[in-house]
């Protein structure tokens, strides 16, 4: 049974989830209003995973992310303004408009990037962990990947290498039961994808991704192990994708019965209720938190909307550090 974290931690977990929930909801609206170019993959329903895994990390720890990366960015401490601006493709975005939704990164905060190729960021996380190991410092790397992505070869190479070298890396499989429009069962021979940890003699943990404290506890343990030279851990969080694969996806392939059940297990609302019930938060305090988030968010939307597009010539800059 999960040991209850300190009150401040619990509030922080809720705050991060609310930030993600509100951000993603707003992005969904902006997208529906044709305000955003390209496509977006929303993290709604899965907030407990990003919040629970990132909260115990320090700024010097690393994460690597996926095409569904907004939640990880927010949970790791990235700010709304440059995130929204990036979604708009504006100069003021984290990537100056060059990356967009699938490539938001802020290396100064240890966020080594969302990544549009499934599982392709897992070796990158391994490299950050390797840097820690060589330098003998305490930093760990958390690498997220989806259920579908576990089928990719480079993930196995990364996991195998991390296990062989006992790298301080934590793999977090977000099993949201779909890879694009295809059900998990169609794509995998097993239900519990964490079984792959066995192949490399790694600890593998299944957590309820809708329970942020359970996610956090498993992560804290994994971090502890990693920092003590115990090598990687694989955490599989069972969770659900409320939205389509991308916004606009008609979702005809989804099982009608699933969504209501998962909605009942909503990680954000239930946790809010829990904190209110436990007296950790009053309604007022909760209102203050969400008001601040919403205000921040609207500021960010205005910022993104009003920021200038990059100069077209900027397209030719930033490929290299050094012009030759």
């Amino acid at each position: 049974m999960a040991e209850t974290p300190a009150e401040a931690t619990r509030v922080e977990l809720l705050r991060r989830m609310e930030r993600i929930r509100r951000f993603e909801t707003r992005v969904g609206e902006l997208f529906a209003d044709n305000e955003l170019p390209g496509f977006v993959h929303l993290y709604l329903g899965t907030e407990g995973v990003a919040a629970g895994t990132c909260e115990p990390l320090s700024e010097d720890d690393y994460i690597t992310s996926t095409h569904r990366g907004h939640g990880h960015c927010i949970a790791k401490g990235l700010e709304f303004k440059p995130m929204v601006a990036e979604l708009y493709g504006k100069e003021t975005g984290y990537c100056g408009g060059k990356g967009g939704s699938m490539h938001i990164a802020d290396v100064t905060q240890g966020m080594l990037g969302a990544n549009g190729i499934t599982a392709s960021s897992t070796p990158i996380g391994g490299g950050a962990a390797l840097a820690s190991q060589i330098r003998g410092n305490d930093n760990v790397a958390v690498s997220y990947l989806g259920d579908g992505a576990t089928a990719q070869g480079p993930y196995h190479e990364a996991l195998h290498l991390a296990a062989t070298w006992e790298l301080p890396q934590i793999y977090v499989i977000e099993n949201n039961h779909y890879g694009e429009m295809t059900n998990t069962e169609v794509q995998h021979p097993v239900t519990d994808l964490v079984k792959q940890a066995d192949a490399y003699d790694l600890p593998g943990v299944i957590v309820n991704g809708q329970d942020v404290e359970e996610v956090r506890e498993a992560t804290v343990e994994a971090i502890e192990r990693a920092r003590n030279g115990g090598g990687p851990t694989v955490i599989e969080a069972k969770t659900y994708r409320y939205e389509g694969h991308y916004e606009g996806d008609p979702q005809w392939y989804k099982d009608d019965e699933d969504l209501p059940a998962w909605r009942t297990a909503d990680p954000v609302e239930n946790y809010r209720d829990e904190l209110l019930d436990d007296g950790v938060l009053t309604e007022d305090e909760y209102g203050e938190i969400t008001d601040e988030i919403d205000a921040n968010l609207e500021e960010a939307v205005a910022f993104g909307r009003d920021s200038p597009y990059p100069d077209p010539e900027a397209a030719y800059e930033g490929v290299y550090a050094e012009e030759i």
Partner: protein
Amino acid sequence: MATTLTPQTTGETEEISVTEALQQAMHEEMGRDEDVFLQGIDVADRGGSFSVSEGLLDEFGPERVRDTPISEAAIVGTGLGAAAAGMRPIVEIMYSDFMGIAFDQIMNNVGLMRYMFGGKLDLPLTIRTVDGGGFSAAAQHSKTLHSLAMHLPGIRVVCVSTPYDAKGLLKSSIRHDDPVFFFEHANVFNRKGEVPVEEYTVPIGEAAVVREGSDVTVVATQAMLYEAFDAAEELAGEIDVEIISPRTLDPLDIDTIADSVDKTGRAVVVDEPTLSASAQSEMVAQINEEAFWRLDAPIKRLGVDNVPIPFSPPLEQEVIPDADDIVAEVRTLF
């Protein structure tokens, strides 16, 4: 004088999109030959990310229309193995950007196996994939990568622009006994055009002169073919543009291109890959070899100027060539 992308045919035709043309091609070939099957991510239930395989699952069932895990090396590698065992597989790589995961299979097995085994083994594998930017999909979902396939021996490379070519060349690719890397293009799927109602194929390895002109030869592929048409219209009266659609890039029908340059004395090659060591470089090199003595000006090329595809619309528009760029480039030759 052919000044239209619609083929000259005496029979009945219908207007369809490139997507429909590709659908028809697979339908017809799967109906014609039991050894043909399709596998890839979301190709069955969903009918493909670009709807190209819509309807196939219903018609041919789950044994022959297969949703795979997200495993491009396995998708291509098992396709190759099935081809070696006598099947005629079509495998889909959703975006050409994802070919990196399968690149060892492509480079070291698909392209080399026949030769390494002494030339004896037919490998009728068709790899379908999608090139092209323009949708703010950023650097990992917008590349145009057929140059990489062109560099590899043992693999034929097809790049289509029109419904007529899409259907006719996909059918030929499926029937072909060598591996064919068939590049669709995100910006071309919705283009419409006439195709014969009767069954037909378009041979691999033949370019088409799609617009006759006397002043300059523009060789243009995929979506660039439409940009070239717009450019030619814009230049009409000033410079008379001949347009060639290579359709197959490996082998390149250099004879048709060289004949045109023989007539015009000038050439611009327009294609969407980054320029360095690209399809464009190759076309320039071959034109230089075959038509040097007839050139009145350097051969020009357009493409993405060796930068990744950026997300932001104004940046992306900047880097992908369009009709204006072609007009400007053509004018530098006079």
